[in-house]
């Protein structure tokens, strides 16, 4: 068999002995399994199966003593196959592979049977049936284990460069940390400026520091760092390859001006006659068709919005450096990296009138993000919070929490940040204009982490009122345009009718439109909230199921700023393991071609999604390139002659499971 393009090493394959000696280790997982499945009865039954030399029941097989028991029994009984019946292989397969490898067994001689997630946890009230099922599952495992073959893990070289997708605060932190460790980083951002959502916030909780004042220097640091190449206004279009060697195609969208000539002086904007709603200010105020995204933008360069441009060429005349180029086309870069960090961000929930208290029908209901821009000194009103209907400064301000969160009709999850930013927003306005009156309508106030509860207390001391209840009816007074809210104060047990000059909706966190594209490009899974899924929610929170791909920030679930920044650093740290070692160990599970049976029909070549099968023209036989093969087995199923086999999932191994899954009742003839 061919192993083009990879040096193989790892565990040395020892000669396998002919007699299969199986040890079966049944885990009770405390009471998780033991409380439902009669583990003793299971072990007794399994002990009667041919080839099983020893069975053992442990309270926690994954514990030190549990692993020691496995190792001791391997020695005592000269075992050459080990079956562990416990939790999910996703949790502990690597643990036990390492455990048996220490005893000189090939790590692929382990068979992992799931009798917790797939048995005891889902048949909690059917103990007998769960016990029978556990017997079936382990019997399947034993029969398969006897047929397992030794495999070698492969080693692939890792290119010591990284790609970070998304230049919000999490992505910037990841890029900075990697760059400071000496690795080259490509930082791709789809917007014309880096900075992400944090650049739009006014002040950030719980300390109420000015958001752009702490983010701005970081953005400049990113731009100044020699190891970071910022690719702004760019998007990842194609990703090929695997851990250590990803080939990525990045599209640079045309700005319609030469970024090298532009100085960001904004003379073009002054000359431009077109005004459109300013998206950076959540649609409040206007910007021109050619504009610098915001004053602290990095890179500080203009961008032409071709959709709204009327081609009057006023900007070209105004530009002293002749930077404008109306015929610019998208350009592309092909980059080669060893790891990819996805920090692709989120958007805030988009409220709609029917469900969300008439937002969009009544002028004086705004979202918290809109409030944030109004509150910002650099915002459309210079920091004066006004109500949209008459531009008057409101006195009575209502806040509604959990809009688009914790709601069966929209999203059931908690967005985690809305309580805190509402507390902060009320606080800021109260400090600016003490005559204002604030009422926060909430379901629960959630203030974990340092300084959060203190910030909540501070709001209360300032006089912000907290009312536990969700509005049941919201109307507009047609004359005053005030907002009339009917809400049950669930603590007092009373219905209240309240009148506000302005109502602010605390909208939650949802995935943005681009998430599907990035999910499919990187081959990631999505969680129930529609955001991307990590490899393990507790122990591998920034890894993904794809080797060499990591996730930071809100891309993998709602988070606040400190959490997102920590994840950026965590990703950099995880990625460095690969980048520094310059090598990665890949799974030994691949397709294997048998040249004696192969007739060179080439069906497999067309089936392979990774171009891992090459035709050896001279011999007229198919060859599997191990480094490219991901081990899905689709070619194996397609092969008409049976020349291809998937190691670890060979036909005889799977058929042994099928044959032994149920002990059918023999019908007497």
């Amino acid at each position, binding site marked *: 068999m061919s192993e083009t393009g990879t040096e193989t090493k790892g565990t040395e394959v020892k000669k396998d002995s002919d007699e299969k000696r199986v040890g079966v280790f049944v885990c009770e997982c405390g009471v998780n399994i033991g409380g439902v499945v009669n583990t003793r009865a299971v072990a007794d039954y399994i002990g009667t199966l041919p080839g099983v030399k020893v069975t053992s029941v442990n309270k926690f097989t994954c514990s030190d003593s549990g692993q020691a028991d496995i190792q001791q029994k391997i020695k005592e009984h000269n075992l050459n196959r080990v079956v562990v019946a416990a939790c999910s292989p*996703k949790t502990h397969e690597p643990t036990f592979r390492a455990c048996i490898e220490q005893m000189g067994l090939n790590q692929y001689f382990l068979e992992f049977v799931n009798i*917790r997630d797939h048995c005891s946890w*889902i048949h909690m009230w059917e103990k007998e049936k769960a016990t029978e099922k556990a017997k079936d599952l382990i019997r399947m495992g034993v029969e398969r284990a006897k047929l397992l073959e030794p495999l070698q893990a492969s080693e692939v070289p890792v290119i010591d460069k990284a790609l970070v997708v998304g230049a919000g605060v999490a992505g910037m932190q990841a890029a900075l940390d990697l760059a400071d460790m000496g690795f080259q980083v490509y930082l791709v951002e789809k917007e014309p400026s880096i900075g992400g959502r944090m650049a739009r916030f006014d002040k950030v909780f719980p300390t109420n520091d000015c958001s752009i004042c702490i983010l701005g220097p970081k953005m400049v640091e990113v731009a100044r760092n020699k190891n970071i190449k910022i690719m702004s206004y760019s998007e990842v279009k194609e990703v090929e390859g695997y851990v250590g060697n990803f080939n990525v195609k990045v599209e640079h969208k045309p700005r319609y001006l030469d970024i090298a000539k532009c100085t960001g002086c904004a003379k073009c904007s002054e000359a431009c006659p077109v005004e459109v709603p300013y998206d950076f200010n959540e649609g409040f105020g206007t910007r021109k068709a050619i504009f610098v995204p915001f004053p602290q933008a990095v890179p500080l360069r203009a961008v032409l919005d071709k959709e709204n441009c009327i081609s009057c060429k006023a900007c070209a005349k105004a530009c002293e450096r002749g930077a404008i180029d109306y015929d610019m086309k998208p350009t592309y870069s092909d980059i080669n990296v060893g790891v990819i960090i996805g920090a692709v961000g989120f958007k805030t929930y988009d409220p709609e009138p029917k469900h969300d208290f008439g937002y969009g029908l009544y002028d004086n209901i705004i979202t918290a993000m809109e409030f944030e821009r109004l509150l910002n000194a650099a915002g459309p009103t210079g920091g004066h919070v006004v109500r949209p209907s008459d531009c008057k400064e409101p006195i009575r301000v209502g806040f509604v929490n959990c809009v688009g969160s914790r709601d069966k009709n929209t999203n059931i999850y908690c967005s985690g940040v809305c309580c805190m930013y509402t507390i902060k927003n009320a606080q800021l306005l109260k400090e600016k204009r003490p005559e204002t009156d604030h009422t926060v309508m909430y379901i629960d106030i959630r203030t974990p982490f340092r300084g959060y509860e203190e910030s909540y207390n501070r709001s209360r001391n300032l006089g912000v009122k907290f009312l536990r209840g969700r509005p049941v009816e919201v109307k507009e007074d047609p004359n005053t345009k005030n907002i009339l809210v009917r809400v049950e104060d669930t603590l007092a047990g009373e219905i209240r009718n309240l009148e506000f000059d302005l109502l602010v909706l605390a909208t939650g966190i949802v995935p943005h439109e681009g998430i599907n594209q990035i*999910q499919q490009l990187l081959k990631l899974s999505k969680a129930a909230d529609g955001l991307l*899924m990590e490899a393990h929610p507790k122990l591998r929170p920034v890894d993904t199921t794809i080797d060499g791909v990591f996730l930071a920030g809100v891309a993998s679930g709602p988070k606040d700023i400190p959490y997102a920044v920590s994840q950026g650093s965590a990703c950099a740290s995880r990625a460095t393991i690969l980048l520094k070692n310059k090598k990665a160990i890949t799974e030994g599970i691949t397709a294997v071609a048998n040249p004696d049976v192969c007739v060179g029909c080439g069906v497999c070549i067309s089936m392979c*999604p990774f171009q891992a099968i090459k035709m050896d023209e001279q011999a007229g036989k198919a060859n599997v390139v191990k480094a490219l093969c*991901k081990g*899905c087995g689709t070619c194996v199923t397609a092969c008409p002659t049976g020349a291809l086999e998937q190691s670890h999932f060979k036909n005889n191994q799977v058929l042994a499971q*099928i044959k032994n899954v149920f002990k*059918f009742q023999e019908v007497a003839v």
Partner: protein
Amino acid sequence: MNEQAPKTTEFEPNILAFCCNWCSYAGADLAGVSRFQYPPTVRILRVMCSSRVEPAFILKALKEGTDGVLIAGCHIGDCHYIDGNKNAEVRINNTKKALAKLGLDKRLRLEWISASEGLRFSEVIRDFTEEIKKLGQNPVKEVK
């Protein structure tokens, strides 16, 4: 079990489920973690991709007397191996056509279940169990 006398209780189907490692197996894990109870009729066999399931595996299972075979993979577009599930779809549909001639096609089912769809996994098992109960036991068993 062989030694036991035939049970007079309600027919409980034996279902074999081929689950892909990345989506459906993880979905079954999530059903467990979330404690979504479903009938103990199903045994899960892990494959790396739904496209690894050969028609011969399905036939073998039915021939052995399995009452129902479920193949579960990632949703189209989400396949860990780009489009293995599309290949699986073609193969399973063809196998279904062949099984129709034997009147066994309703005993084969293909479902897309993602890693986040623990609830859906339990619902699929519940639903398939009910369907197989209506069909009764695999007639191959009687022939045997």
